[in-house]
């Protein structure tokens, strides 16, 4: 369809494509429209939604999804996806807490150990993927199941319970908490530090994606890995690196969970991987790779946060949340599709 439209006025120059149209072909436009609509909607039916403290809560909810959505969006642009992210976050938190508790060392040693574990999980995911050439669905589904099992099994084996012992009295806890789970007062409102980490990650990811060689390679390996390899792009390294970036995001969120609650439930995290993927897809990342943006993933996460908390502020039953999320996913992707087609055909 796009082809037929394009060949017709073959001598037409680009000046006809104005700024508005350029904006409309951006990958995150569908999500942006959805976010604005949702924001107006909740502001209208629940005035409390507009209060600064409510917004801070919404942003906090968004950030816990958004931090992961950054990595997942990059990975999806690179043509793969990861089903193990939800439990990998918990694995990271468990590693830090169990390591420090079992060996009675400073919590920072555990935090660094967790970073190695998270990057290692990403590396193994990516390495198996490029070596076996199996679809990422299978590879990460396998790691998802194995990690879920390891989380439960090792926690019981080492700690003798399904949750980790509290780590609040271990050396270094307060400093680590200040970095991963404190809040900052802005205009009289407590804003969780994860919001700032989230925003920083989005900025760094956008910069990498649009303004560095690695970003070019990410789009290329997702768009057409064979073509990328043929012109000398290190496809294997790029893919493994993307999985490790997801691992890094998982580490940050894992550390937040650990220091916010002092203890970790080993069975948690299952199902969260879909929230991250949904945020990236709502944000305009193509499931087939090669298209999308980090900002889109952030807007997707913000939509999630608004829906999640907005339902509470509107005093609806939270049972409706899942339905709402599904509807948003469908609408945002349809809007993406329509807007893109229309902009390309002009």
């Amino acid at each position, binding site marked *: 369809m796009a082809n037929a439209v394009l060949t017709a006025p073959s001598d037409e120059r680009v000046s006809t494509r104005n700024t508005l149209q350029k904006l409309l072909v951006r990958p995150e436009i569908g999500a942006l429209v959805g976010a604005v609509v949702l924001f107006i909607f909740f502001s209208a039916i629940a005035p409390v939604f507009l209060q600064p403290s409510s917004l801070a809560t919404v942003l906090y909810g968004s950030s816990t999804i958004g931090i992961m959505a950054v990595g997942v969006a990059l990975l999806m642009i690179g043509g793969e996806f990861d089903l193990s992210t939800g439990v990998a976050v918990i694995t990271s938190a468990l590693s830090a807490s169990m390591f420090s508790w079992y060996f009675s060392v400073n919590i920072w040693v555990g935090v660094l150990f967790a970073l190695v574990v998270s990057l290692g999980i990403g590396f193994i995911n990516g390495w198996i993927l490029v070596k076996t050439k199996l679809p990422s669905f299978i590879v990460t589904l396998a790691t998802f199941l194995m990690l879920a099992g390891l989380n439960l099994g090792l926690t019981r084996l080492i700690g003798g319970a399904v949750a980790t012992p509290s780590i609040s009295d271990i050396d270094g806890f307060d400093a680590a908490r200040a970095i991963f789970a404190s809040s900052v007062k802005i205009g009289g409102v407590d804003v969780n530090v994860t919001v700032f980490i989230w925003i920083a990650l989005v900025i760094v990811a956008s910069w990498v994606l649009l303004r560095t060689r690695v970003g*070019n390679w990410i789009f290329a390996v997702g768009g057409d890995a064979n073509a990328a390899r*043929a012109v000398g792009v290190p496809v294997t390294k790029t893919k493994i690196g993307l999985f490790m970036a997801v691992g890094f995001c998982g580490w940050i969120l894992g550390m937040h969970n650990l220091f916010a609650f002092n203890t970790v439930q080993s069975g948690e995290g299952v199902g969260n991987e879909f929230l991250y993927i949904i945020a990236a897809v709502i944000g305009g990342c193509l499931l087939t790779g090669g298209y999308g943006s980090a900002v889109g993933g952030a807007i997707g996460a913000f939509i999630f946060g608004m829906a999640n908390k907005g339902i509470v502020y509107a005093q609806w039953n939270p049972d409706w949340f899942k339905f709402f999320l599904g509807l948003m996913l469908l609408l945002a992707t349809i809007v993406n599709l329509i807007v893109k087609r229309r902009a390309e055909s002009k």
Partner: protein
Amino acid sequence: MNAQQIDQQTLLKDEKDPLTHTPVHLLSLDKVGKHYGNVIALRDVTMAVDNGRVTCVLGDNGAGKSTLIKIIAGLHQHDEGSFKIMGEDRKLGSPREALDAGIAAVYQDLAVVSLMPIWRNFFLGSELTTGTGPFRRLDVQKMKDITLKELAEMGIDLRDVEQPIGQLSGGERQCVAIARAVYFGAKVLILDEPTAALGVKQSGVVLRYILQARDRGLGVIFITHNPHHAFPVGDRFLLLKRGKSIGYYEKKDITLEELTAQMAGGAELAELAHELEQLGGHTEALNEVKAEVAGVVDAAPESNAKRH
């Protein structure tokens, strides 16, 4: 057979082997072979590539053309014979190594990433950067300018280098890939069936770029199964069949008719026609085969005319 002879006649005049100071070929293959397990994909292939010359590799599907270019482009390694770059024996481990040696391949189906803008495709894998350390970033404006200029020099007038390359026509995409290879200092350009999926007019456009690349002093390897495309632009012709070389000619030693006959296996076509006749068919298929045998002769003068 006559490979040795062609070797002697077409050796480069100005390029010297750094060790022996005798003239060398840009690329030369001698009795190169490759097998996958016990399947022999290629054997006994001898050919040479020089500056400003087009070496055509012709063969039907499964003749071993792809295996041959994969060896030259660094995607596979040969098991037998020798592959020399500037007189030096080499085995290329990756496409990157091939690129560093000045060998660039333009593939029919995987030349570009269609969702990416033209300028990003043009510089993919060899991006220009500015700044240092963590602030090293893409030099976007410079890359856009160069893309526009290089493509204009190849005669491609673009509206916008920001548009996804998938929106260009097949011929234009090939040309972007060729321009890219030329810009990045390729000495040898491998074109894998660049005209296979194109219409008559688009094919002509691509053939013209092949000649432009040749005139810029590149050694071109042009892979095709269409002798009518190969003959007007080629200087040397290597014919492959079932993984084996069945002929290596200079242009002056062969005519288009002979080339076509060898390619299609004229004897085989005649035999097929005979067989069909015996099976009792004045069927459409029989007529078609006969027409094809006749067409070999008919088409010849036309292509010759195009050359002059």
